[in-house]
């Protein structure tokens, strides 16, 4: 049994040594970011913005941020948040995999005075703070735009998000309510879009086999307008005959919304070019994580923050779409909302990165995790 005691002794010595170590960073708030699945474009961009916020000159001396990825399984995020609490977290910024599955662990964390703040998706446990857009509003505003654009009648195709999630259910239900009020609007096909341009392409291809272009008057999608316009061009539809599409805030989509003769666009190619697509672009903005971090620090500094921060819904139409030259926060403040294709190689990249509350993070934050200046 002697070896066991030796091992235990060693263990104790080591854990003492490591425990003594982080004392240097005592003034900083210990904040964790618990992400879900990182393997999609939105998540990676949002993570970059959180990291940039923590690295900005306003926060780098205040915040000790550790980023962790839980993966798609809620069980693991539960375990992860518990472990963060054990590690002495003062605040945890969370992208919750499920709005309900984390409730118990969040309640435990709150009981130990850890600030829990969720971005983009929600946590329904009342002690958590939430930062997100009004999902039903997103569905309603875009559906109303499409109904108006079509003059209240026509056949439309709907592309939903991930079935079984609150975000998808709320957006789709609100949109369908609007369409139900317009007796002339008929949903002829409904695809499952999974919030992915790649999936949108396969779903629309499937739908077109049974509902050809000439039988469709418009699209209401959660992600996919960019892909749809590209497919219309492949089918030989002229720029001025493009069908109205209510959809995502992708940079490619907003570029297509620019008037076909828009000046100063660099790096346009193929379908990733101005073509005056009649469209409304909304987004769940990826700066929400950065804002959540900022709010968490405010709370830790003793200020009150609201339980729910409803982000203004970023809506861009053909009338308001405007090209950014550099993509600095100051330039975006002046009203630009789409970036040069030469800078943003991926048309599926999410362009709604401006918030008046986050002057620390601009285009470089979203792209490379680097703060402004």
């Amino acid at each position: 049994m002697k070896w066991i005691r030796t091992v235990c002794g060693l263990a104790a010595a080591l854990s003492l040594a490591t425990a003594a170590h982080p004392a240097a960073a005592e003034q900083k708030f210990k904040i964790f970011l618990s992400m879900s699945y990182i393997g999609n474009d939105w998540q990676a961009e949002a993570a970059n913005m959180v990291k940039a916020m923590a690295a900005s000159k306003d926060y780098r001396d205040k915040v000790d941020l550790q980023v962790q990825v839980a993966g798609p399984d809620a069980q693991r995020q539960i375990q992860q948040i518990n472990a963060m609490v054990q590690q002495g977290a003062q605040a945890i910024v969370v992208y919750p995999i499920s709005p309900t599955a984390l409730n118990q662990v969040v309640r435990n964390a709150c009981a130990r005075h850890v600030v829990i703040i969720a971005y983009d998706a929600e946590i329904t446990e009342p002690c958590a703070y939430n930062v997100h857009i009004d999902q039903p509003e997103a569905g309603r505003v875009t559906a109303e735009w499409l109904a108006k654009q079509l003059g209240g009648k026509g056949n439309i195709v709907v592309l939903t998000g991930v079935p079984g999630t609150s975000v998808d259910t709320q957006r789709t239900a609100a949109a369908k309510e609007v369409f139900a009020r317009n007796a002339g609007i008929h949903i002829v096909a409904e695809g499952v879009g999974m919030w992915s341009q790649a999936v949108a392409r396969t779903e629309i291809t499937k739908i077109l086999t049974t509902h050809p272009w000439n039988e469709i008057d418009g699209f209401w999608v959660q992600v996919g307008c960019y892909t749809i316009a590209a497919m219309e061009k492949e089918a030989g539809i002229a720029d001025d005959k493009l069908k109205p599409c209510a959809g995502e805030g992708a940079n490619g989509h907003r570029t297509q919304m620019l008037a076909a003769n828009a000046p100063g666009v660099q790096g346009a190619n193929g379908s990733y070019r101005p073509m005056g697509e009649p469209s409304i672009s909304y987004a769940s903005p990826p700066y929400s994580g950065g804002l959540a971090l900022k709010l968490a620090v405010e709370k830790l500094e003793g200020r009150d923050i609201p339980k729910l921060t409803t982000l203004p819904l970023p809506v861009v139409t053909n009338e308001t779409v405007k090209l950014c030259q550099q993509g600095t926060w100051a330039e975006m403040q002046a009203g630009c909302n789409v970036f040069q294709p030469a800078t943003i190689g991926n048309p599926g990249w999410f362009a709604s990165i401006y918030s008046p509350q986050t002057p620390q993070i601009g285009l470089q934050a979203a792209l490379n995790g680097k703060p402004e200046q």
Partner: protein
Amino acid sequence: MSASAVAGRAPPRRLRLGRHRGPLIAAAVFLALLLTVDLISPGPFSYFEFGFLSAGGAALALAAMGQTLVILTGGFDLSAGAAVSLVNVVLAVTMGPSPLSQIASFGVALAIGAAIGAFNGLFVAVVRMQAIVVTLSAMFIVQGITLLVMDKPGGSIAAGFVATFTADAIPGVLPAPVAVILVAVAFWLLLKNSRFGVGLYAVGSDGEAAFAAGLAARRIRFGAYVLAGMFYGAAGAFVSAQTGSADPLVGRPMLLEVFTAVVLGGTRLGGGRGGAIGSVIGAYTLMIVVNILLVLNVSAYFSSVAEGTILLLAVLVASLNRASPVAAYVRLVRTRLSARGGGKLPTRATVRRAAPPSSPARPPAGAHWFTRNRAALRLVMPAYAGFAIVLAISQVLYGGTLDNVGYYNSLLVLSSFLAVLALGQGAVILTGGLDLSVPWMIGFVGILTAGLIHGADAIAAWAIPLGLLIGLALGIVNGLGIVLLGLPPIVMTLAMNGILQGAALLYCNGTPAGFAAPAQRWFMTGRLAGLTPVVWFLALFVPAAALLLGRTVFGRRIYAVGNNPLAAKLSAVPVGGTLIGVYGLSGLCSALVGILLSGFSGQASLGMGDEYLLPSIAVVVVGGTLITGGRGYYPGMLGGVLLLTALSTLLAGTTLPDAVRDIIFGLVVLGAVLALRERRA
């Protein structure tokens, strides 16, 4: 026991320890990881922490125990995660505040699990259909029902129910989750030592022999699925308590982890060896990885890489001993070297080759084609029959389908991805393995090539071959890990998937840039003699794939390895080389799909391959391939591709709710295979 008795019975005793080596080593690995976490994290390991950790892995552990029962009989249960979700939503909808209702709820949870298990058991044990096809359709049907019960997260679970499972069984001594697991383990031990338990192992080791020995193989299989379902039910009840509410998607991502936990715990896919205790340890090992990543402060992009590496090391440590493949290969090389020195290499020996015997079993060449290929046709036909029915329904619903070239063209373009993947995944499955690295092999190669190409045809001319080579090389790495290190295919390829995810994120720094070359786009969306070029490519690919599997030496070896690796080895089939070749082929196919997909979409995106893992397995098995290897044909797999693509095309054109589509999907898969299953005389 007296000393003399011990001495007298020493050999069987060592044998017994040897039999438990799997779980023992798994436990040692887990304890090592736990100690690492404890060493690095500040503060002593408290009862509080013990409680948290025990709760974290409990649901996964329960589900993995259930899966173990099925795997021991040689089966495969894909409905585990779906069952957990269904139990979760039903409990949240039905549970009242009264204690009686809460107790009844636990009964309901077990009953739902048992019902799903009975459905699976009925078709697997009684109707004798392939476990993976049955449980795949059960998974879809159960997912659909779950969404019908609850279309978004919500609901709440009574506080008493929550406390029973997650608070303390004995305050300060025994957290409730530990008690739950102990009860489950006790149940397993009773089961294992019963007649039923012996039967479980017997059926899994050799079903025919078990049947011949008078075991009620059918009843044992059926029972295994029902009991497994009850374990999933218990897991669902635990998840409900742990989360205090419901989410219709909560169980879905658990599926892959359940299999990993089972394999980590030393249970062999294919049946007959392993046990549920190992799976419990495997489940907790998977969960403690989360803590390890945290205490080591592994950065986000590296987390999937680190996780994959930990997984590999955990299995590797467990498999390192004198009997391990590494040791065997070292011995083999040493023997060969000494044989070379002594001039005794078998290739130098003169052997009189006998003429190959003419096979008398083969019907005379004049017999009707159908008679000669009856066995193959019976495997291949269900998928095509289902495809024909779906086509007919499409015609009735939409009209102008059957005679519309555009419809077939779109269908074939959409099928091309799965048709290519089916060759790789199919070849892997024919050897009795599985390739789970498909999603990020697609994503990594797609992102890498699109990033290099940046819309330039001139670069595409070398970047596409380079991408294909990288896919081939990474696939070969999979094969090397499986053959040389003796890693289970599920673990090796899952780890590879995680490593490639990290590599893709690091390469593009979270934002994949670049887009496909015009030639790539033309290939997937343009026109050549009235059809999309990829359809013409498919017309060449399909016969080539069928020939590769059916008519070449490599193809023959795949079947030989899948039927019986030992017999293949003794018949001078290079088993290792064949396996490496098969995983290389699968890597190549995934890489090709990554390039095709980025041509189709115009650019590559993170997670672009995520939608293809399950379908790549589904089409192979719906096409009549045996998941345990050795039986199946490429034309059948192609039939599976056409059936599933036509079905999803049909459903996409409707406005049916997703829940109903899932159910239809499940029923069609089941129905197609049921209609023309193997009939016994």
